[in-house]
Every structure is written in structure tokens, then in C-alpha cells.
């Protein structure tokens, strides 16, 4: 029997890859303060996934289309200062989710359970899903690596980056689309509601331990993969829903890291009084 024929084996590989992918993009979500945008993305992919499921196309394609609309929409809104981006993002979040819920309710005898969208279904991961996650991880890592300089410059100093000739609006779209690819890949496994914690928590924990992007990234990827693995183990050990236990593990990792970094007084974040002085 092939190793991949076992559902638990496939699930193990999927949580490792998805956790690493979540940690990798999570670093940029945390640094650029895009948690709320990412939250909107996870919920906006929901109607796309449901619609794809109804029509009978690949659900990742459906999620990708819905997510891309939100990513480009938010990028366009944030270019117009007068618009309240946070308000628009919030409306997209609940509007998208409502659309998905409405679609599910409108289908009599709908083959998939609503819960599987909301909290994921890691144990039903197919070899194709696994391959998609692996490809997404490689692509996202390659894009973040080759675009490290413009992303760093425009994240740190947008005005300076524009003055130096970088099209910061374009690079913002690149970053939003990278996050979108990761979200769309992770959501079927971990679920619409739960994906955000796996993306943000490992990166936020990693940020507490270093000021070097390379170290933060390595740490976030490791913590993301470990959260996935730990959550899956807890799920099979105590028979809890996998999506929920993965999310709880990621949350616990962040809580533990916060406590530890306070105890170990080497935590190298900027003291509040220096922040005020810089303004």
C-alpha cells in the first residue's frame, strides 16, 4: 500500500505544508498590519468556494477568484485616502460571508456540510490538494524571496520607496495577491473561520523574538508547521475537530511565546518612550 493512501498520512503532510505557508505569509501580514484584510480574505473566499462546489469546479479556483476580487478591491480603496478602508473591508468580510451562507442555504440537499467550510476538513485532503499546497508554498516563497527588496523598502518607508522609483502601489498588490494565494490554499484544510489564527499567531509569536526578518521568517514557518502538527495530533488523540485543535494550538503558541518573552527580558521590541520620541 502506498504511504499516501492513508488519510492520516496525507493530513500530516498537509498540516506541515499549510502551517509553513501560513507562517511564511503571516510574517508580512503582521509586519504590514494586514490582519483585518486577511480576515476579510478568509471570509470572502467562502462564497467562491461554495459556488465552485455547486457548479462542480475545483473549490480552490472558486476561492481564488473571490479572494482576488477582494484583494484588488482593497488595494484600489486604499489608494483613495478619503475612503474608509477599514469600514469597506469590514463590509466585504461580512457581506462575503453572508453570500456564502446564503448560497449554502439555497441548495436543497447540498452535498457538502456547511461545517466543513467553516472549520475545514483536513482528513479528507486529496493527493491533488496536497500537491496544490506544495506548489503554493514554493511559489509564495520564490515571490517573497525575489521581491524582498521592494517589499522591505515600501513596507518600511513608502514615501522613500516611491521617491526611489519603486511603484509601491504595484508592490502592494503583489503582496496582497501572495497573501490571497496562501489563504485560498489553507482555507479548505483549516476552514474559513479558523485560518486567520494559523496565519497570524506563529508570525506574531516569532516577531517577539527577533528584529531580523530572516530569523522571524524561519521561526514563523517552524511555529506554523508545529502548530499544524500539534493540532492534528491533539485532534486524533482526543477526537476533536482538526481545524479547531490546530487553531487552538497556534493560539497557545502565541500565548506561551508572549509569556516567555516577557519573562526572558531580552525581548527586543521598541520601548514605548522611544516610539513617542520618533513621532
Amino acid at each position: 500500500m502506498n504511504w499516501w493512501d492513508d488519510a492520516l498520512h496525507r493530513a500530516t503532510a498537509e498540516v506541515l505544508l499549510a502551517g509553513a505557508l501560513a507562517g511564511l505569509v503571516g510574517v508580512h501580514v503582521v509586519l504590514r498590519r494586514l490582519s483585518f484584510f486577511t480576515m476579510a480574505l478568509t471570509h470572502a473566499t467562502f462564497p467562491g468556494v461554495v459556488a465552485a462546489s455547486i457548479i462542480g469546479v475545483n473549490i480552490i479556483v472558486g476561492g481564488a477568484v473571490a479572494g482576488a476580487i477582494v484583494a484588488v478591491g482593497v488595494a484600489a480603496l486604499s489608494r483613495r485616502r478619503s475612503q474608509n478602508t477599514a469600514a469597506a473591508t469590514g463590509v466585504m468580510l461580512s457581506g462575503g460571508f453572508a453570500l456564502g451562507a446564503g448560497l449554502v442555504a439555497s441548495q436543497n440537499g447540498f452535498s457538502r456540510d456547511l461545517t466543513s467550510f467553516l472549520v475545514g476538513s483536513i482528513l479528507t485532503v486529496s493527493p491533488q490538494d496536497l500537491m496544490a499546497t506544495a506548489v503554493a508554498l514554493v511559489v509564495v516563497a520564490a515571490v517573497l524571496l525575489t521581491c524582498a527588496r521592494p517589499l522591505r523598502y515600501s513596507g518600511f518607508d513608502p514615501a522613500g520607496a516611491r521617491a526611489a522609483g519603486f511603484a509601491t502601489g504595484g508592490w502592494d498588490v503583489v503582496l496582497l495577491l501572495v497573501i490571497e494565494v496562501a489563504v485560498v490554499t489553507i482555507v479548505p484544510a483549516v476552514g474559513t473561520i479558523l485560518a486567520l489564527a494559523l496565519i497570524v499567531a506563529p508570525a506574531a509569536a516569532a516577531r517577539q523574538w527577533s528584529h531580523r526578518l530572516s530569523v522571524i521568517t524561519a521561526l514563523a514557518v517552524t511555529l506554523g508547521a508545529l502548530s499544524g502538527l500539534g493540532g492534528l495530533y491533539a485532534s486524533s488523540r482526543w477526537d476533536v475537530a482538526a481545524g479547531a485543535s490546530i487553531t487552538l494550538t497556534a493560539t497557545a503558541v502565541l500565548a506561551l511565546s508572549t509569556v516567555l518573552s516577557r519573562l526572558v527580558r531580552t525581548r527586543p521590541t521598541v520601548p514605548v518612550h522611544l516610539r513617542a520620541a520618533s513621532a
Partner: protein
Amino acid sequence: MNDAAAADAALRCTEVSVGYHGTPVLTNVTLDLVPGQRLALIGPNGAGKSTLIKSILGLVPVLAGTCTVLGRTPSHARTLIGYVPQTDSLDADFPVTAGQVVMMGRYRRIGWWRPTRGVDRRAVQEALDRLGLADHARTHFGVLSGGQRQRVLLARAIAAEPRLLLLDEPFNGVDLVSQDAILSVLRELGAAGTTLVLSTHDLTLAHEFADTVCVLNGRQWALGPPGATLTADTLRRAYGGHAIELRDGRTVLVEP
């Protein structure tokens, strides 16, 4: 004006109006700077100093008149222009070291994905040395003091080897040590032929730094040597009648 003269000028603005969304915030600015000239833009908050600097960078549209940098339009001259933004526009929590910030000045030369070369690393080290930051190359930008941050940003601009350097309020929140370091490097750059444009509301620093002063507030009120422009009369008119005292030859702004 012939083309050769335009190419000789480091910065030439002719009756320029700049602003946002078609509404001018600053009108009728006429400047003509030769290489090595040191210009201070003086004016109260909201006078349009930052907007003028951003329009020379090609970030804010020129609504009327023409502006050329070394004979080119601003957006075509970006590789020749260095820019030191106000530090409060930066994300100080972002995980970058002082050395990485200075390396940003080399990005245009390196390209956005090619590996850095020895010449880039030497330029970064040299720029850090000149501003007395050699020991801070690996220090996180966010833990530096306001003055050190400002010096890092100047080092970044120097590393790009610009021929025109624009500085937006470089002395805001800066300690005396950093202020002296910045002033002495700016003098060296001017002597080496780099044209400098600096905005400030500090009249004493303008006296120390500039060979030419441009007084702005909504429009250009005066242009010339510090002694001829930073007079009580000019400043009183530009600042809208705020009390201005003349004391032992120096002009002092007094808050109303």
C-alpha cells in the same frame, strides 16, 4: 533660456504651482540652482515646503509652470535625486537594521532582485562611517534615537550618490550631536558639487546651512542670500504679521 543652460542648472523651477487634486497649496515658485548650491526652504507649518519637495521628486504633480532637474523632468531624474523623508513617515517597528536601511539607497543601482556587490557594501559602510554610525550597522532601526535615525536616512541618501539632495525637516527631534554631524556632512557634499535643498522652520539653522534662502507660505515671498531674505520685514509679511523681533542683526520669530 537655451538647452545648455537648462542642463547646467541642477534644479530649475519656473513659476511652478504645486498641490493635490488640482488645488494648489503653493504657487509662483521660481528657483534656479547651480551644482553645489545650498538652498533652505523657510516657512511656517503648512507653507507648502514638503509639497514642493515632493513635486521635485515627481510624487506630487506640478500644476502650472515647469520644473527640471539637471535638464530632465522630475520623474526622469529619479536616479540623480536623493531624498531624506521626515522620520515620522517611517514604520520604525519594521524589522530592518541601520545597515539594511542604508543599503536601500543602493537598490536602484543593484536592481530589485540581483545580489549585492562589493561596491554596494563599501558604499554603505562608507556612508555609515561618514555619519559616525559605523558601530550601528547591525542595530535595529527602531531602537536608535531620533537623531541617529535621521543620520541613517542621510547615510541612505548619500549611498545613492545623488547630484541633487532633498531633505524634509532633517533637524526635527534631532539632538545637537546629530545636528552637527548632519550639518558638517551637508557642507562636505555641497563642496563636492551636490546641490542641496532643505526645508526647516529653524531660522538659525537656515543661517548656518544655506547660501540661498527661499521664504514660502502659499507662495514664494523672497529668494536670495540669508542676510537679505531672513529679515524681519520679509518674515513678518510671509508669516502673516506674527511678531518678529530683530536682535543683534538676527531675526527671531516670536509666537503670538
